[in-house]
């Protein structure tokens, strides 16, 4: 593989990781949604580049799916949802922005260390894509557990799924059926989440999931 095509793959996958960090860094919901759309577009570009490099035309379908569904459809729907729920305010975080970023850096280092041992068995590009994908997945999980607001948790989940797609396309030979089913399951999950968020909102007048704790019957210290 020539060094330029490697560099472009590195650039696209790396920018996905950077956008994951930006997701953690943002403190407004609309900005979070925009960054998420950007990440999906970066994913689509990365997958399209992989299809060129690997000469696997079916990956183009994945790229188009990622671009349309996650780059445009889901962010637009989330924007509408935010407007209807009237939550334009800041993102509520469980822990501060600084510790979150440090934890994120630690997770990136961890995923790089984890992927290092497989150096011999696979190509350089696959190893790098795996490291980036693992980091994006872990950062998505971090985003899910450090946010109180249900909408930003949904975004964390979707960005986690971006990482999964990146990992899948980095490894050669993922069947198209799997990709279709993943894409549709994401759509269905999105619909379920949407309904769920509206139900929470109806019942508790907030989308802060902390309000659910009182109804679990586990924490006896609260009335």
């Amino acid at each position: 593989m020539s060094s330029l095509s490697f560099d472009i793959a590195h650039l696209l996958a790396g920018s996905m990781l950077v956008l994951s960090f930006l997701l953690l860094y943002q403190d407004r919901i609309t900005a979070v949604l925009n960054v998420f759309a950007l990440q999906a577009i970066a994913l689509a570009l990365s997958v399209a580049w992989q299809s060129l490099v690997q000469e696997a035309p079916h990956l183009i379908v994945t790229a188009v799916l990622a671009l349309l569904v996650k780059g445009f459809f889901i962010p637009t729907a989330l924007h509408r949802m935010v407007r209807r729920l009237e939550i334009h305010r800041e993102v509520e975080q469980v822990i501060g922005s600084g510790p979150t970023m440090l934890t994120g850096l630690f997770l990136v280092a961890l995923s790089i260390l984890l992927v290092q041992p497989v150096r011999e068995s696979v190509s350089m590009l696959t190893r790098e894509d795996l490291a980036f994908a693992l980091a994006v997945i872990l950062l998505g999980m971090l985003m899910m557990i450090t946010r109180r607001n249900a909408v930003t948790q949904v975004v964390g989940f979707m960005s986690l799924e971006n990482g999964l797609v990146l990992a899948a396309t980095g490894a050669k030979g993922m069947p198209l059926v799997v990709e279709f089913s993943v894409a549709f399951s994401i759509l269905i999950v999105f619909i379920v989440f949407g309904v769920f968020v509206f139900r929470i909102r109806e019942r508790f007048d907030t989308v802060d999931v902390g309000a659910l704790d009182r109804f679990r019957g586990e924490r006896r210290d609260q009335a």
Partner: protein
Amino acid sequence: MALIVELALQCFQMMLVVALAPLVLGVTRKVKARLLRRIGPPVLQPYVDLWKLMHKEAVIAHNASWLYRVAPYVVFAVTWVAAALVPTYATDLLFSWSADLIALVALLGTARFALALAGMDVGTAFGGIGSSREMMIASLAEPAMLLIAFTVALVAGTTQLSSIAAIFINVPVGLRVSLGLALFAFVFVAIAENARVPIDNPATHLELTMVHEAMVLEYSGRHLAMIESAAALKLIAYFSLIACLFFPFGMAAGDKNATALGVGLVAYLAKVLLLAVLLPIGETSVAKMRVFRYPIFLGGAFAAAALAVFLLFVSRGF
């Protein structure tokens, strides 16, 4: 003969930065004023200001120690050395062997240390608050700066500025996300270090949140002239660093004939002027930050720089 030419070229660079520094400051002020729809002072105003300050009486507080009188000269000298060492129009000058990225950070740190001590010397409340804030910003910006140095050193294989510039000119490094992230982090650090807008406002003496101006509030006359020209030198040192590390195009890297040097000089002037125009545009588009948000701002720079180092490790292995 060759040694004399080398020495002359090095001296020219030293004189160039110190002569150019007030002009760069004047250009940023002019552009900023125009963006705010004011006419603004002439571009050459900083020179006139320095001339005026040089001929004014220096008022010194009764309880000021020798430190207070020496500090401005130390700050100016150290900053001048730092600014003169950064390669501007040509690589591999006579003193280039000493222009190490980490040494440069240490020189600028020494200047900051002297200024912070001087700020606390007289014992006024403003000087103390300025010094403590300056030190807080430094403690946040320096780790990020160190990681940027690591990034560049890992790509180029050296921390010597002149060699880094030569490598980036001659060897194709390809598309590097790490260098982009390092540039991003470096801009943040440069804004914080030069007391520019989101962190500090260089145009005011009346804000409670001022940092640099609070430290030098007691100074007047020739001492103030020294400190102001040191601040201008620091700005041009950071501009030259950006130009040398990330955009070294046009520098005279090979043998030093008149054409190559001329091209290098024109390219350097163009780069510095471009940065002097871009800085106020950035400044006018953001609002001043609360002091408690500094860690988040510089933490972003640190995260970007750390990510740059990590990305380098992924792409080349340990």
